């Protein structure tokens, strides 16, 4: 049974792709207003877990609860309207639309807001993500940092209680990643809980007060960042076992 105090909880999640077990008996909980980082080597199951939480994948076994309600059978769009938003590893803005129009689509279809509120929320998200000056730019002309900002803003306009971020720092310079971290910190101050997969750990721990490390479809460590990073099983997962 999931902790009734958890905002988001996944319990005994199993997931397979054909013969390959990608998630095995994974339990994960997120408290309200918490920020949790998920790390682990390639193929650990991190993105699959995020997809299960977001509703992009239905687990073979296990349940997902949000605010105490079983949402396992809900798809991603339904979960988005409940307050679960996500960003993707590779930003794919709606081409042929401006940045502002991208947000309007997300606010109205993802968040379910009417025209006026969708517009107001889009302006707020643009301001928050430092994109107001780019509102009328065609989204496909944006550089990588601005595409990542747009990805974040598009999730924000749906008014999420939980934001699921998948490698949003990948490919950015230290300076760019620092700007993104500053924005994500503001989101935390607004009370949005965050689950963030990231390989760039020194960026991640600027926001996350808790780290979860996955390996081969299982959670192998969960706790304060410094303790998790020093955990022998975590080191072995990244570097291979000692002889």
């Amino acid at each position: 049974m999931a902790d009734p105090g958890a905002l988001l909880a996944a319990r005994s999640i199993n997931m397979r792709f054909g013969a390959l077990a990608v998630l095995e008996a994974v339990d994960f909980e997120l408290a309200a207003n918490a920020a949790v980082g998920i790390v682990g080597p390639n193929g650990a199951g991190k993105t699959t877990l995020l997809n299960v939480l977001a509703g992009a994948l239905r687990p073979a076994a296990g349940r997902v609860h949000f605010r105490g309600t079983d949402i396992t059978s809900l798809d991603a769009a339904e979960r988005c309207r409940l307050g679960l938003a996500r960003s993707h590893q590779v930003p794919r803005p709606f081409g042929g639309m401006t940045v502002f129009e991208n947000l309007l689509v997300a606010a109205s279809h993802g968040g379910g807001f009417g025209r006026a509120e969708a517009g107001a929320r889009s302006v707020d998200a643009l301001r928050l993500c430092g994109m107001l000056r780019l509102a009328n730019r065609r989204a496909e002309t944006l550089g990588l940092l601005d595409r990542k900002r747009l990805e974040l803003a598009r999730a924000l306009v749906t008014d999420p209680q939980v934001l699921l971020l998948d490698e949003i720092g990948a490919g950015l310079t230290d300076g760019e990643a620092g700007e993104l971290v500053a924005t994500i910190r503001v989101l935390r101050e607004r009370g949005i809980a965050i689950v963030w997969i990231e390989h760039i750990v020194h960026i991640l721990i600027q926001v996350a007060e808790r780290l979860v490390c996955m390996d081969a479809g299982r959670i192998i460590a969960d706790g304060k960042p410094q303790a998790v990073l020093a955990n022998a099983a975590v080191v072995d997962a990244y570097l291979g076992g000692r002889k």
Partner: protein
Amino acid sequence: MNLLELEQVEARHGLLVAVRGIDLRLGEGERLAIVGANGAGKTTLLRTIAGAHRAAAGRVVLDGTDITVVPAHRRAALGVALVPEGRRLFASMTIEENLRVAQSCGRTGPWDIDAVLEAFPQLKPRFKARAGSLSGGEQQATAIARALMANPRVLLLDEVSLGLSPLAVERVYASLQSLLRTGTAVVLVEQDLQRAMDTTDRIVCMLEGRIVGEGRTGQITREQIMQTYFGHRPADALPERVGTAP
């Protein structure tokens, strides 16, 4: 003179800069390991050295000759061979045919069909089998043997243990150890740090497309390398870049 030199090499995947400002030197016969977390740019760097990925900036120099814009097949003829991640064999061709394709680059040297079969005896009974029908370990052995058939001066090995059973990994590395004694320079990308340390003289750590530290294999610890994986820079982390290859 160094055999291979990279000067401020940058490589991109669309908008993403995967490799940034890499300076790297490799001596004749030197064995270098590149380690780092997923997405650090290791594979892109190997592919850029091999000419399978275009450098967006910087220079790749082989034995004093700038090969930055030289296509991959001509680099193979100059002595740069890549064993790519995932093997990338010609699946419908036999082991023998895969090996003979590599021979067509025209380089001569100690490696011929007999020599590679001696190095990888597990391929002998399957010599006429189609590459697509081989086990993962046999495919990896074929991929390495194919690269050797080009008699390379620099052998680039990308994740040769990935997806193999522990026994197959043991066999591949046992064969690798024997070929490393022949004096071919090697750049090895390997997730298993112990294997990398056992196989090479020097380790370079990459993070977010950059080299963030390097050292001699006997002088650096797992803990120091782990720090670079996570982007920490405490006082006892890996030394900053140290000079050139011997």
